[in-house]
């Protein structure tokens, strides 16, 4: 396999039906109106020399290499900035043009180091390529003129260098930062010959607003902006197309390797989720996969107080099988269970739930989505009939109003955030509902029309008020509702009640009624309005209600079933959607079909040769409760650090301590493995073979770039445990697992590895009705038939601020770190976020005598931890915020047992706390975890 090189058409594709026909070098080309001469030529297979043009950026016209001859035009226009007009006749190669192009290259090379042979990008440099293309043989200016060869290199970024001596001032990096990423961190400073790239106000990249997304590195045509790994390891020699294993955006990457060593991860232009863009995690933070902390051999111990003993695979698997059977023999079939991971592939997750259902003989399988997006599954299924978002990411390009609720895309879903920001810069309007002033509210060239700064825990009151305005101000799309929905009249009566008016709930939400009304009018009267939401919606005691509330609002305004609209969960982890799809919930078989459905069960029973239980099993919190009361005694945990990530740490550790067997399958020893009896080493995404399904239901291939460092694929281990328990379970490869999923699950009927290799990716449902998949759902009707309006009563959480705990703690993520940090903390990303900080409003800090950087104790009624304070008026008064990326912080030591009424999704977003100044000591481990 060799390096994959996508074709660069020079300028972006222009949408549109109308076409123009032009003649280029005698070839007739038909292109959409507005297409540049350069792109039209590229489509006709004619490459025009270029340096400042690349098809991810708007044309700029600075390098002057792409000059062409056009009949009837004076001079030599630049083909990148010249749009095709009907009948245009273009010549791209004439002696005069050749002369001009050589002249330009001569100038470039007169101010460029002549170190090609020792340059890290030798062979992958557009400047070098162009010198060859134009036939530059001599630089008549010599090399002793004024130049930039002595400019210093900025190595402040952990991942890439900026070597100014190699810069050709093409501005591609600056434009990528502006147009692709939308951060506007880079600029040109100086004039004329002194023009150079500067980060921010001229400091280093690290000191600037740079978010290290890599777009500049990607755009640079020379070695000026260069991954340090390329400098250190040399140019890669082959690429493997795969999918990022961080957030739910699911970016496609080319893993570029030398031998089996990953040199760099390069975003793949034809990847539908990211279209060539990336963020600091996916692009650069892959070093954890080869981190020395990785445990590569299985380990076993009788008691959790014993030291670990490394064993061979056979012994570990036999031990697990034997102990599981013994526990079932002693305590019943329902005494064991498993948890699947949203970080694992669909195939790995499917294997675990199959092991639980067929080999364990129960439905005690749950997934870490329980603690993030289970209310999405419930709420959207109740209202629309399917447990998934309605749109593809691209749809946002057609949105006129974007309503972001309880999501922080620039940190948690950065690549999609860039798409949102681009649309906003084009003029779409933005409404943000969030207690914090997240970056989207105001950032370069972006400003939300409305920031509805609600108190944590009052989402439902707010969404009801918005629906109330829609219904009482005549903003309902009556035609849509009549044609497509049911139970509207009853809901209309419910929501019209005066108790839902913005004025009535103003005191609850803290949002001025006039703002709610104005924002609602904006949303409801837009041609296309879309809702994007995150865990700020789901992780509440009314998470499911809120999901249904948003579904109601979108239906009532007719914002469902076409591009630019919809209700879209931004999934936290790479495969949240997939792990849910794969039957990870205790009440559902793959494809969200209830275990009580005889016909569905029959499909699996026939194929698996076992009778399946028709009753739902235990959810994760139920497992902990059952463990404490003694009826649940063994747990298989796939790739999730439940001790760090689940709420009320003390409760979790008590449950785990009470169990007879805890099996952890993970990359690293973690907080949970402290309570484990068996550790089964897992594989990183670079070793996995399978698929991830992203937040837009897109099934992407994850291709192994190296063999499992552990010697076995995770699904193989699962199969072997099942076999050790007497259940025959075997696949030759991951493709066979997907084939089984396709056979058993109608929404996946058309999916296979072969198909994905052929078309790149598909969005489920993918079957005979939709062989190419389904980018947008509910177009001709809701999956459940009619969209159902559900009365969404606002039931306040029981978690209230009190005199003892007067502040509300809410939690979230930061750009550079990911979840519990197991991966990102083992990369250079910690340069940006070495510790979790407690953000608090200056007023709340002042009254407690807390200054920026002080260490404070954070106490709730269930626990206490300590961390340092960052004073920031992005917080509202009365609300504090922290991240949970570092185990030392133990943010979940303080979170409570409250959970979503329908799904038990924990209420991470609302905890009553108090903050007090500590003696200046370094942050310490949380008491519960130090034991």
């Amino acid at each position: 396999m060799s390096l994959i090189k996508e074709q660069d058409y020079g300028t972006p594709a222009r949408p549109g039906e109308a076409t123009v026909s032009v003649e280029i070098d005698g070839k007739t080309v038909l292109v959409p109106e507005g297409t540049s001469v350069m792109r039209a030529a590229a489509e006709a297979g004619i490459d025009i020399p270029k340096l400042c043009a690349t098809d991810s950026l708007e044309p700029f016209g600075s390098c002057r290499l792409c000059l062409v001859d056009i009949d009837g035009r004076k001079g030599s226009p630049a083909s990148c900035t010249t749009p095709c007009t009907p009948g245009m006749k273009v010549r791209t190669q004439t002696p005069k043009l050749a002369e001009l192009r050589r002249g330009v290259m001569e100038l470039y090379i007169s101010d460029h180091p002549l170190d090609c042979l020792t340059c890290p990008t030798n062979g992958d440099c557009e400047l070098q390529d162009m010198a060859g293309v134009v036939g530059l043989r001599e630089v008549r200016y010599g090399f002793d003129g004024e130049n930039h060869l002595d400019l210093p290199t900025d190595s402040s970024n952990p991942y890439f260098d900026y070597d100014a001596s190699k810069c050709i001032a093409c501005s591609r990096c600056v434009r990528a930062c502006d147009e692709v990423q939308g951060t506007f961190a880079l600029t040109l400073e100086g004039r004329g010959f002194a023009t150079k790239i500067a980060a921010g106000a001229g400091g280093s990249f690290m000191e600037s607003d740079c978010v290290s997304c890599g777009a500049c590195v990607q755009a640079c045509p020379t070695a000026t902006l260069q991954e340090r790994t390329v400098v250190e390891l040399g140019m890669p020699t082959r690429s493997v197309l795969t999918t990022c294993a961080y957030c739910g955006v699911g970016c496609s990457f080319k893993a570029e390797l030398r031998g089996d060593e990953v040199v760099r991860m390069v975003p793949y232009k034809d990847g539908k989720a990211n279209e060539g863009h990336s963020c600091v995690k996916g692009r650069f933070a892959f070093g954890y996969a080869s981190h020395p902390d990785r445990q590569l051999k299985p380990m076993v111990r009788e008691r959790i107080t014993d030291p670990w003993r490394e064993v061979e695979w056979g012994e570990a698997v036999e031990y697990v099988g034997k102990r599981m059977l013994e526990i079932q023999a002693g305590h019943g079939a329902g005494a064991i269970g498993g948890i699947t991971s949203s970080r694992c592939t669909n195939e790995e997750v499917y294997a675990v739930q199959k092991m639980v259902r067929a080999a364990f003989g129960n439905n005690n399988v749950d997934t870490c989505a329980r603690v993030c997006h289970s209310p999405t599954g419930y709420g959207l299924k109740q209202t629309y009939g399917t447990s998934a978002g309605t749109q593809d990411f691209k749809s946002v390009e057609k949105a006129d109003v974007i309503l972001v609720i309880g999501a922080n895309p620039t940190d948690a879903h950065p690549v999609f955030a860039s798409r949102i920001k681009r649309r906003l810069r084009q003029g779409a309007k933005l409404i943000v509902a969030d207690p914090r002033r997240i970056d989207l509210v105001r950032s370069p060239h972006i400003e939300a029309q409305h920031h509805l700064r609600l108190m944590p825990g009052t989402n439902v009151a707010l969404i009801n008020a918005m629906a109330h305005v829609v219904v009482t101000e005549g903003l309902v799309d009556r035609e849509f509702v009549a044609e497509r929905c049911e139970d509207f009249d009853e809901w209309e009566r419910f929501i019209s009640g005066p108790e839902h008016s913005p004025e009535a709930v103003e005191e609850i939400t803290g949002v001025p009624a006039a703002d709610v009304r104005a924002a609602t009018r904006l949303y409801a009267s837009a041609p296309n309005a879309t809702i994007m939401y995150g865990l700020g919606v789901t992780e509440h005691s009314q998470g499911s209600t809120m999901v249904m509330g948003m579904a109601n609002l979108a239906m009532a305004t007719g914002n469902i079933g076409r591009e630019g609209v919809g209700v879209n969960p931004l999934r936290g982890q790479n495969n949240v959607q997939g792990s849910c799809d794969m039957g990870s919930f205790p009440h559902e078989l793959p494809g969200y079909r209830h275990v009580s459905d005889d016909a569905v069960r029959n499909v699996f029973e026939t194929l698996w040769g076992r009778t399946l239980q028709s009753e739902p099993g235990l959810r994760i919190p139920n497992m902990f409760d059952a463990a404490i009361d003694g009826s649940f005694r063994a747990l298989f945990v796939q790739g999730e650090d439940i001790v760090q990530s689940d709420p009320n740490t003390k409760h979790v550790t008590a449950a785990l301590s009470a169990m007879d067997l805890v099996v952890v399958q993970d990359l690293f020893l973690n907080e949970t493995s402290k309570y484990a009896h068996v550790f089964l080493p897992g594989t990183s995404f670079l070793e996995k073979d399978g698929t991830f399904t992203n937040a837009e239901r897109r099934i992407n291939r994850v291709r192994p770039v190296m063999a499992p460092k552990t010697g076995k694929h995770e699904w193989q281990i699962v199969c072997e445990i099942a076999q050790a328990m007497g259940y025959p379970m075997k696949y030759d490869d991951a493709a066979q697992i997907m084939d089984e999923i396709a056979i058993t699950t109608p929404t996946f009927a058309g999916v296979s590895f072969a198909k994905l290799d052929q078309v790149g990716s598909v969005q489920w449902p993918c079957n005979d009705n939709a062989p190419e998949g389904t980018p947008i759902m509910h177009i001709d009707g809701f999956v459940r038939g009619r969209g159902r309006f559900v009365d969404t009563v606002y039931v306040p959480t029981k978690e209230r601020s009190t005199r003892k705990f007067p502040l509300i703690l809410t939690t979230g993520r930061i750009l550079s770190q990911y979840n519990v940090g197991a991966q990102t903390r083992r990369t250079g990303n910690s340069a940006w976020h070495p510790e979790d900080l407690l953000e608090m409003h200056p007023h709340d800090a002042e009254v407690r005598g807390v200054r920026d950087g002080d260490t404070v104790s954070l106490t709730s009624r269930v626990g206490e931890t300590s961390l340092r304070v960052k004073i920031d008026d992005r917080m509202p008064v009365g609300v504090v915020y922290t991240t949970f990326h570092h185990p030392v912080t133990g943010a979940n030591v303080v979170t409570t047992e409250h959970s979503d009424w329908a799904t038990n999704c924990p209420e991470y977003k609302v905890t009553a706390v108090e903050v007090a100044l500590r003696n200046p000591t370094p942050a310490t481990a949380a008491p519960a975890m130090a034991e």
Partner: protein
Amino acid sequence: MTTTHTPPHIRLANEISAQFQQRDPAAAAQEIAQHIQSFWDPRMRAKLIADAGAPGSGLDPLAVAAAALLPPAVHG
């Protein structure tokens, strides 16, 4: 620091019931029962049914009514 524990099945049943307070009690009980039947492990349902009969369980009356509609739970 300790938490005074309401047994989880009681707390959960009450939280579900709270969502249906505005509905007609009979219909609400039906929906609550259906929800519990769909999502709860049989051993939790069994506890609920057992406690629903007992005075002082702390169960919401709607939850009690719903429990009465649940079929006897069989352990999986």
